[in-house]
């Protein structure tokens, strides 16, 4: 089962400068991220703290914010796209 993870510019240096990374796992966002941390150990502290995502990190599965679904337990289907983005953007 393969999932594509889109990496924001700020994190590309810790994932060998890739804009997307393919992960051979699935199930939940949590499992996808763990697989990603396994490949790129430096990524973990950048976006997570005490097992939770840092508060200025947004994660989307198939373009939907995971906070509208089940957070880190949101299901990720085979072939789905997971997007990590900084939350600090936009606004008035």
């Amino acid at each position, binding site marked *: 089962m393969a999932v594509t993870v*889109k990496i*924001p*510019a*700020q994190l590309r*240096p810790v994932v060998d400068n890739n*804009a997307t990374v393919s992960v051979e796992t699935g199930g939940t966002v949590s499992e996808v991220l763990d697989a990603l941390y396994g490949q790129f150990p430096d990524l973990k502290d*950048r*976006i997570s703290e005490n097992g939770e995502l*840092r*508060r*200025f*990190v*947004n994660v*989307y599965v198939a*373009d939907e*914010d995971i*906070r*509208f679904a089940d957070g880190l337990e949101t299901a990720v289907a085979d072939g789905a796209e997971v*997007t990590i*983005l*900084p*939350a*600090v*953007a*936009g*606004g*008035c």
Partner: protein
Amino acid sequence: MAVDALKCKECGTKYPLEALFVCDQCFGPLEVEYDFSNIDVEEAKRTIQTGPQSIWRYSEFLPFTERPKSRLATGLSPLIHAPRLGEYLGGLKNVYVKNEASNPTHSFKDRVVSVAMAKAQELGYEVIACASTGNLANAVAAHAAAAGLDSYVFIPTDLEEQKILATGVYGTELVGVKGNYDDVNRLCTELSAEYDWAFVNINMRPYYSEGSKTLAYEAIEQLGWKVPDRIVSPIASGSLFTKLYKGFNEWIDLGLAEGTTPTFHGAQATGCNPVADAFEDGRDFCKPVKPDTIAKSLAIGNPADGPYALDVARSTGGSIEQVTDDEIRYGIKLLAHTTGVFTETAGGVTVASLKKIAERGEIDPDETVVVYVTGEGLKTLDAARGTFEKYEIEPTVDAFNEFVPTPVTA
């Protein structure tokens, strides 16, 4: 000039003054840091008072080493004493309306865009872009046209027609995105990594947001270098709200302004209330929502500065209010009837929130209250439709006498 560096608001890591907006280490927002230790207060005052009739009179407190120029002068909007509004709210004597409709594109967004554009030009960018709920779209398109720069403006497709027309007219590349503002924002965040453009509210965001501080400086200057006791401001992402706080405190700390930090009230629509809900629930984080409100300029379901806005409201003893669409329409009408100022829906949210706070009896009649009316009513005309009666008569005196009530005093 006092500008020093960019600094992460979460972990404190410092960065050079470049097109950066997120901390590499923890993803926290970057903010402009200043070193005001060499500022002579009397001299700073004189520089401001003899400066240009625009926000650039405050350039010493903005992220520049030289005073920028822009072709569309922004700022110095009127601070209107509103005794009739105060009277309606139970006898408040010192309510002031800061009317931002007087800016070049009729909203406070001219301030943030002026600052972001000046910085973008300094950094050598040739294309300006933004994700917008409408007012920002107007401002980016206009200021880019005036400066002769190419611009790309991304908006949700369902924006008010007035805001779409008042953007396209400036000759920008206008892109309607099928989704809500948060979808537009996500797309632009991704595009900002692909294109070497200055997205004013993404990679220019630390500079852009500093422009909002001028709304605090101006209120202080217009009140005779005094800080108001209380302010009411709309909240979308929370950026304006938190930068007002920064602006007031910078001048209080320097001794440029007389007084203490105002009580801060934020205003949201019930149909897009992530910050107000978090305030009511006692949470220090916001749960994103899918917006459904007539206050489209405030329809940000995923507010970037939400946690900081909560801190500001709580630490100043203020609040974050939420009002329904009907209350918003009433707020627009109340402001128009009592002050002669016609505001867009965001101003309706703010005035309706002020009414709620006043009705709770929290405001002393002698307090100075500044209400930030951030945009122009002509941009959201639908909100005024059906809120008043209109007589249609034959062109005869008899018809007039028959159908139109005459004033009691006549």
